[in-house]
């Protein structure tokens, strides 16, 4: 618990300080660049910027402790409300992408490791390299051009067609779930159609990383003596790979899957920009450009929470898959 508190204090302190020392002026974000000096001075005082930075930070922490993340300059809404709107959009995307990474990337990695040096291995490695190194911005535009522009298989940018906006009540913030709960199947399929392309792209990124790491972890294990022993004892190849080697890479895999998921939750700004996806990454970035520090801090706290949460979840999963961790 103490670690958790310290993590948050450190996270907010660094973000807060960066926000206060960077050259962008939060007062101009409120009043615009043409405002007279009198308006500037008034808002400067209203925002408490005349106070020492530690005092400003202390006040922010106090408000944060009371669940108040402040108000966004950009959206005129409480930051908490903004996060409730933007974060589920990212969560929906990141979860699907990570699931793709797990269900396709892990078997790919295992396959490559088992066939080390053969064609399959080269193909997986090259695919991994491509997935990891092609700029997602470019890939996104090309995918939109082909699958939306030319083939018309999927819907274009945005989370949902605008005509469907506001029809389904927001319960969870996840359009797929909310539409399903409301039994609005047209809206559900429309949301799927919008989601499929950005999720696949992010999924390709996650998949490439997870496959490469799985391959590397598996190779480490497959070269161990206990694998040789198992084979000598006559264990089938399937048992050697899945029961012996794979079980031993699970802990490492959980770590990298957790990290991948957390980094996707941070928001993939470029993907969100190309697909006009109103997610947390775009929210934090736009806020930063607009010197909207309450929003940036709020977003950072959420992302920090995700990191900490996923780390804790990973720790719990370690205990599940590794008997040594239970003691």
């Amino acid at each position, binding site marked *: 618990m103490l670690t958790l508190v310290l993590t948050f204090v450190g996270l907010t302190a660094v973000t807060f300080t960066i926000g206060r020392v960077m*050259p*962008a*002026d939060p007062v*101009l*974000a*409120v*009043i*615009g*660049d*043409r*405002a*007279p*000096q009198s*308006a*500037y001075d*008034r808002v400067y005082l209203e925002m408490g910027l005349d106070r020492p930075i530690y005092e400003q930070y202390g006040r922010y922490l106090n408000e944060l402790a009371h669940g108040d993340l402040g108000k*966004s300059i*950009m*959206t*005129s*809404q409480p930051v908490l409300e903004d996060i409730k709107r933007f974060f589920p959009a990212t969560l929906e995307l990141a979860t699907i992408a990570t699931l793709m990474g797990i269900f*396709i990337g892990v078997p*790919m990695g295992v*396959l490559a490791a088992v066939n080390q040096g053969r064609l*399959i291995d080269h*193909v*997986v490695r090259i*695919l991994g390299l491509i997935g990891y190194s092609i700029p997602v911005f470019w890939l996104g*535009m090309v995918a939109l051009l082909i*699958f*939306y*522009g030319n*083939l*018309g*298989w*999927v*819907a*274009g*940018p*945005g989370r949902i*067609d*605008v*005509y469907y*906006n*506001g029809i389904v009540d927001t319960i969870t913030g996840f359009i797929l779930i909310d539409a399903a709960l409301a039994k609005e199947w*047209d809206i559900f*399929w*429309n949301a*799927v*159609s919008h989601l*499929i392309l950005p999720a*696949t792209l992010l999924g390709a990124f996650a998949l490439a990383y997870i496959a490469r790491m799985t391959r590397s972890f598996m190779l480490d294990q497959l070269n161990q003596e206990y694998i040789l022993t198992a084979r000598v004892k006559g264990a089938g190849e399937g048992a050697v790979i899945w029961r012996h080697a794979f079980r031993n890479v699970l802990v490492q895999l959980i770590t990298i899957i957790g990290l991948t998921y957390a980094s996707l939750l941070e928001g993939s700004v470029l993907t969100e*920009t*190309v697909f*006009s996806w*109103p997610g947390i990454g*775009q*929210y934090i970035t*736009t806020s930063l*450009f607009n010197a909207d520090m309450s929003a940036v801090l709020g977003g950072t706290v959420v992302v920090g929470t995700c990191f900490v949460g996923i780390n804790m979840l990973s720790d719990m999963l370690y205990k599940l898959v590794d008997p040594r961790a239970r003691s």
Partner: protein
Amino acid sequence: MRKLFRFMVAWPLAVLTAIALSLPALAAPPKDTFVMAKDISDIITLDPAEVFEFSGGEVIANIYDKLMMFEPENLTTLVGGVAESWDISADGKTIVFAIRPGMTFHSGNPVTAADVVYSLRRVVKLSKTPSFIITQFGWTPENVDSLVVVDGDKAKITITEEFSPALVLNALSAGIASIVDMKEVMAHEVDGDMGYAWLKTNSAGSGPFVLKTWKANELVTLEANPSYRHGAPGVKRVIIRHIAEPSAQRLMIEKGDVDLARDLTPDQIVGISGNDELKIQADPKAALIYMAANAADPILGNPKVAEALRYLVDYEGMANSFLKGQFQVHQAAWPSGLWGAYNETPFTMNIEKAKALLAEAGYPDGFEIRMDTLNSSPYPQIAQSVQATLAKAGITASITTAEGKTLWPMYRAQKHQLILAQWSPDYTDPHSNIDAFAHNPDNRPEAKLTGVLAWRNAWADDAMNAKVVAARNELDLGKREMLYHEIQKDLQVSSPYVVMFQQTEQSAVRKEVDGYVSGATFDLIFYRNITK
């Protein structure tokens, strides 16, 4: 190998195709809904007393009727909006507005003189940034209750400063003169905020559209007001989608998912020019791109250097290449197409002349200088072109680009040398720009006239100041226009500015769409005549 292919390529592709093909056909926008793609990340408020951003200004121009207005049918003639008629006193200081009868707000409340008075007082008392447009008349939170009053069934305003009534009426056509529904706004007042917190995200107007939703960085939805005084708008609904990426906008307009795309780049406009389903609409805007030289700088403060700079810009070269179609050469401080415009373009690139001027100034071998500009297109490209032409006269310019929120504080603090920036008028009277470019009554750094361009560039000229005030106060329109021409001509001869271009907005519109009217400023963009 076949197994691998099946696993890694065929199988995922089959799933993707199956899902894609099983999805319902994607529908184009319905006939009664007009959808526009635009970067609307600049909207931070929709309260007319506070809106000063391009997208926000455009949205409220379609929600509220102003006291005075330009109508889409005639963008050059100022007419009454909520005001049916007006009487100006002989000294030009008092104007009495008769209210247009039979008008109602979206709530059903009648529009009265009390609403007009409340709306103007509210702007002054809330003192948000655009309030200067009317507080320059001498109105303060303390005196406005006695200077803006209900007079029977009319609204009477009195100005305490010297101003031409033409200017006052023009200023009352800006967004801050939007007339709000007093009863509705007061019903949402919290802690004496005059409904400010509520009106930021809601509407209480009498215009052709009602605000249904504003989701920041996502969309704005407007519903038609069927009982609008000019009749119901041509479409039932207008949706403005936040699409920041121009390439995505292009795909969407080509697919028919949006009816109008606002932010296409010049090469994208060329790319769609052969598409039979689209048309290109070019609308002259009032935005000017200019370069300014800080006169406090020991080198740039030399008038000969400033003059030389005007010959070191490849105006035509840029306008005919990467700015083609979206910017025209314009070299005066008030944009073309508006009353009072001065369209002379005396400068072309002339390296020899510039070199001679630099030699006269004592810099025959040039000098080193920093140039700051915005990091968004087309500013870095223009800066690079200017950098190249400056180099031909021996001037070495280093370019620094930044976000506006970083650049403006530096500009307001007079910390720049050369700056490449943009300026748009706040209302359609030349005083709006001329006051900023030419009028600097106190050039001392501690005066902090940070909203004034002349002060930011540490430039003041007493004769020019007197001319600006004379033009501002002149009652005779003919004389007034002549004065503004003179001022603009003088600014071309002696000032720290190199005005280069005026913007033309090129929008891609679906063929079946008509009636989108986009005037020079955001107050003049109208959706009510749109049909499809």
